[in-house]
């Protein structure tokens, strides 16, 4: 437990009588690539929202490196190193690709209460941004308006923005959603490269990708984690087969 990077303790969330997250407890050690799978409506995205601070938790705690961040709002969690991506691509369409990433660098280093000087010309911001773009393979699109990128490229940009924030823990909400086979291959290769370097919590529908990438997998059904283990263990778990993988495996 000493090297736990992210711990969830008895996390709950209800909307009226509907319990969306039901007593989720999970510990992710430093450097682990952890995936959460589950059928539609299992509460995966709600869980990510709670961990990232986009929505408040009903009860329970989120700990980052042992520190309780449950009460911190989203922007301050990001500054602590808990960074997320969005299921529905969330970029600044009117900004250049480079500026999208440079803003994440700007949030991380130095103050943004600086009223003079052209931010777009600051090499201190642009150089790390270019490095992040290089990492995701978008370097040659740096000057393009982000709104003009293809869907797959937008997903790459989303990752570059998250990386530029230098996360300790990266929360990825279905990074492969809506991508074609070629685009998803690019993204999977990218995630493979990140594996081990950053602690990652991934939510994903693409089972093949999950089983190929994850060190450990948790299965979420009706807001509850019903199993956690290596991909092989989870695949063989009877409960999981009944609850979720059933129709695929038989």
């Amino acid at each position, binding site marked *: 437990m000493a090297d736990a990077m992210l711990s969830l303790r008895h996390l709950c969330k209800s909307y009226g009588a509907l319990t969306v997250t039901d007593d989720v407890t999970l510990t992710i050690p430093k450097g682990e690539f952890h995936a959460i799978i589950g059928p539609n409506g299992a509460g995966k995205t709600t869980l990510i929202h709670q961990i990232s601070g986009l929505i408040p938790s009903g009860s329970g705690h989120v700990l980052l490196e042992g520190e309780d961040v449950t009460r911190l709002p989203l922007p301050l969690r990001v500054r602590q190193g808990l960074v997320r991506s969005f299921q529905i691509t969330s970029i600044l369409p009117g900004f250049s690709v480079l500026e999208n990433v440079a803003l994440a660098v700007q949030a991380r280093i130095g103050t943004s209460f600086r009223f003079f000087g052209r931010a777009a010309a600051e090499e201190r911001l642009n150089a790390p941004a270019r490095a992040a773009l290089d990492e995701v393979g978008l370097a040659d699109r740096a000057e393009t308006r982000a709104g003009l990128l293809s869907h797959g490229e937008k997903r790459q940009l989303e990752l570059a923005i998250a990386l530029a*924030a230098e996360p300790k823990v990266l929360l990825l909400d279905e990074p492969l959603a809506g991508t074609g086979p070629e685009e998803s291959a690019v993204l999977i290769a990218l995630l493979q490269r990140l594996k081990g370097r950053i602690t990652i919590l991934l939510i994903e529908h693409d089972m093949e990708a999950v089983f190929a990438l994850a060190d450990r997998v948790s299965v979420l059904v009706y807001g509850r984690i019903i199993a956690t283990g290596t991909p092989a263990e989870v695949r063989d778990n009877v409960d999981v087969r009944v609850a979720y993988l059933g129709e695929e495996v038989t």
Partner: protein
Amino acid sequence: MMIRREALPLLLFAFFALMPIAASFGPESYLLALVTRVMVFAIAAVSLDLILGYGALVSFGHAAFMGVGAYAVGILSSHGIKDTAIQLPVALAASAFFAVITGALSLRTKGVYFIMITLAFGQMAFFLAVSLAAYGGDDGMTLSGRSQLFGFDFIKRDRAFYYVTLVALIAAYALCRSLVVSRFGRVIRGARENPQRMAAIGFPLFHYQLAIYVIAGTLCGLAGFLMANQAEFVSPAYMTWQRSGELIVMVLLGGLGSLHGAILGAAAFLLLEEGLSGITEHWKLIFGPFLVLVVLFARGGLIGAVERLRGKGGA
């Protein structure tokens, strides 16, 4: 690209700078007063464009800041304090203070609620001014003269006041221009495009939006200071909600989010008002449809129309 973009504001400022020379061949004091008024409102419109155009915050109470700035001049001078060295800092500080209080509350709301709450604060300022019986109440009050600078009547002559106003406009414009491309301005522009994304990168937007709201309010207070001196009169009419609406119309008419568009919009609005009201007392019957046409057909306001024409010419 850069040269083209900067050409229009330079042209505007050159026109303002040379206008008094042309005016000396005509009805000089009338023209000086009219264009001074245009420049004063241009400062207010530029400051509104900062939050409306760049921050996407539709403030429907912006005229209140003009009123606060103007009343600072009026109240101080009625007590015999007529020096700019005191009046201007007080006017700016009062506007900034009003902006901090109203902004801190308004910015907790979004969309229509933000419009309503800024309108409500604007009305509060208006009725507060109406209730100031000692300072003219409903009727307002006439100043005993323009502000001085270290005992010297530096803006007593209309032409001097005209150029002081022009300098203030250029300074306000330059400040805003620098602001919108700075790190701070980039955060504000980012929040306009996608606030959730900005929060997820690590920006607590409230702080930044409050800062831009205070900057805009303070600049508008400067316009109020000039307004009081221009008219040598202060009244609650400066902060009616209609006036706030007019400021929004100026920004939209000129073109949202370009700064010099707001200057053009203020000029077009006031000159049209002046010109049309000279033709008929029902000038709003012409002015109204004109605004509708601009909004419908010249997307991006007058600036948008100018840039489209240029684009066609260049291609």
